[in-house]
């Protein structure tokens, strides 16, 4: 299975019927395709509406209706629109149940770096810092390591932070890791990997008891 699909499917299991969810641009948007049967969620778009629907056929695209990545979308029957202050009040005020974002680095304290790399062209943080501080549950969805094999789950982030100690769960193609006060708890590993491989591919201390690790 494609790594991205595997991650998206596993993230989808974390979402419950009725949840208000913000999915980051890129791979996290795939999560909406894999919701469990009977689970319906309300997707929040930080540019100012609730109820993101599927991408329209190109001839039906509305110039005034795009997602936070600027791509044409539709709005569902239960949707509603608002300005940017309301949009971020929804985020910061704890009215978003879950946000799913990618990461450059996550560390043992739940610190997240995902907005800039010193020396590389800067894009800006957009709404990421507010989302990570404000949503009730922060799920990081990413490939376990960088393409060159370097680790992304580290003891301490070296890149500029997006937010401090806010990450709750890390879901990768290899593992599911819960961030708790005492560190990173390995709770699941992928069916085609081993405990040893996960430990070797992780740059941080993983807490686990071998008998309790589930397979996904």
């Amino acid at each position, binding site marked *: 299975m494609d790594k991205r699909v595997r991650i998206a499917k596993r993230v989808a299991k974390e979402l419950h019927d009725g949840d208000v969810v913000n999915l980051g641009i890129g791979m996290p948007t795939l999560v909406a395709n894999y919701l469990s049967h009977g689970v319906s969620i309300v997707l929040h*778009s*930080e*540019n*100012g*509406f609730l109820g993101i629907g599927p991408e329209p056929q190109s001839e039906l695209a*509305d*110039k*005034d*209706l*795009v997602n*936070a*990545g*600027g791509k044409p979308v539709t*709005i569902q029957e239960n949707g509603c*629109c*608002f*300005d*940017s*202050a309301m*949009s*971020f009040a929804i*985020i*910061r005020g704890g009215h978003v149940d879950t946000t799913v974002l990618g990461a450059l680095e996550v560390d043992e304290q739940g*610190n997240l770096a995902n907005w800039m790399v010193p020396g590389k*062209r*800067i*894009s*800006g*943080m*957009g*709404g*990421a*810092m*507010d989302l990570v*501080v*404000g949503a009730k549950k922060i799920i990081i969805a990413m490939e376990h390591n960088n393409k060159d094999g370097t680790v992304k789950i580290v003891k301490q982030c070296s890149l*500029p*932070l*997006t*937010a*401090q*100690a806010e990450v709750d769960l890390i879901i990768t193609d290899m593992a599911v890791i819960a961030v708790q006060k005492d560190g990173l708890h390995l709770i699941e590993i992928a069916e085609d990997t081993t405990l040893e491989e996960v430990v070797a591919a992780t740059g941080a201390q993983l807490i686990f008891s071998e008998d309790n690790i589930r397979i996904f």
Partner: protein
Amino acid sequence: MVKICTANEAVKDISEGMCIMIGGFLGVGTPDGLVQALVEKGTKNLTVITNDSAFPGVGVGKLQDNKQMSTLYTSYIGGHPESGRCMEEGELKIVLTPQGTLAEQIRAGGSGLGGVLTPTGVGTVVEEGKSKIVVADKTYLLEEPLKADFALLKAYKADCHGNLIYRFSARNFNPLMAMAAKNVIVEVEEVVAAGAIEPDNVITPGIFVDLLVKGR
């Protein structure tokens, strides 16, 4: 009755060194006719407050293409590579601000507030140079209000008194900026008779609006 004029007339009093707010999110909800008029006028050295620098040739991106800005307050420049390059090489001062913070700074500017306290950015580079205030054991950053000489906005419809409604995600920063600038110019798709917009449906009260321009 609010005066209706052409885009070129509307921007005639914008002069070098002024501060301008421009609505829009990646070009959606940006007053394209007003931005084009400002490009044709060629006014330089502008301080611009806007969510993002859009894309080359799109929305606020045109002011970047034409090098008309000296300072840019924004949350995202990833769509316009020239913004990143100008920031790196010091040609343009760019103040990157989390999107929700930018919205609240503008709202505060228009609401007579001395600023807002937000948890967003605590423990990141965003906190540099800002006062930190602890309320009930939680740390917040004091973010100061933003105001402007002009706001260039886009709405869907205005009535002849300037009461505004918006469409879908084209609302974004427009209602906030309508409160925060001395002169507010709004490009609309249609001007309708008084009473044609129900009082209950008005999003931006007409008292904020100084000039209307017919656009698309």
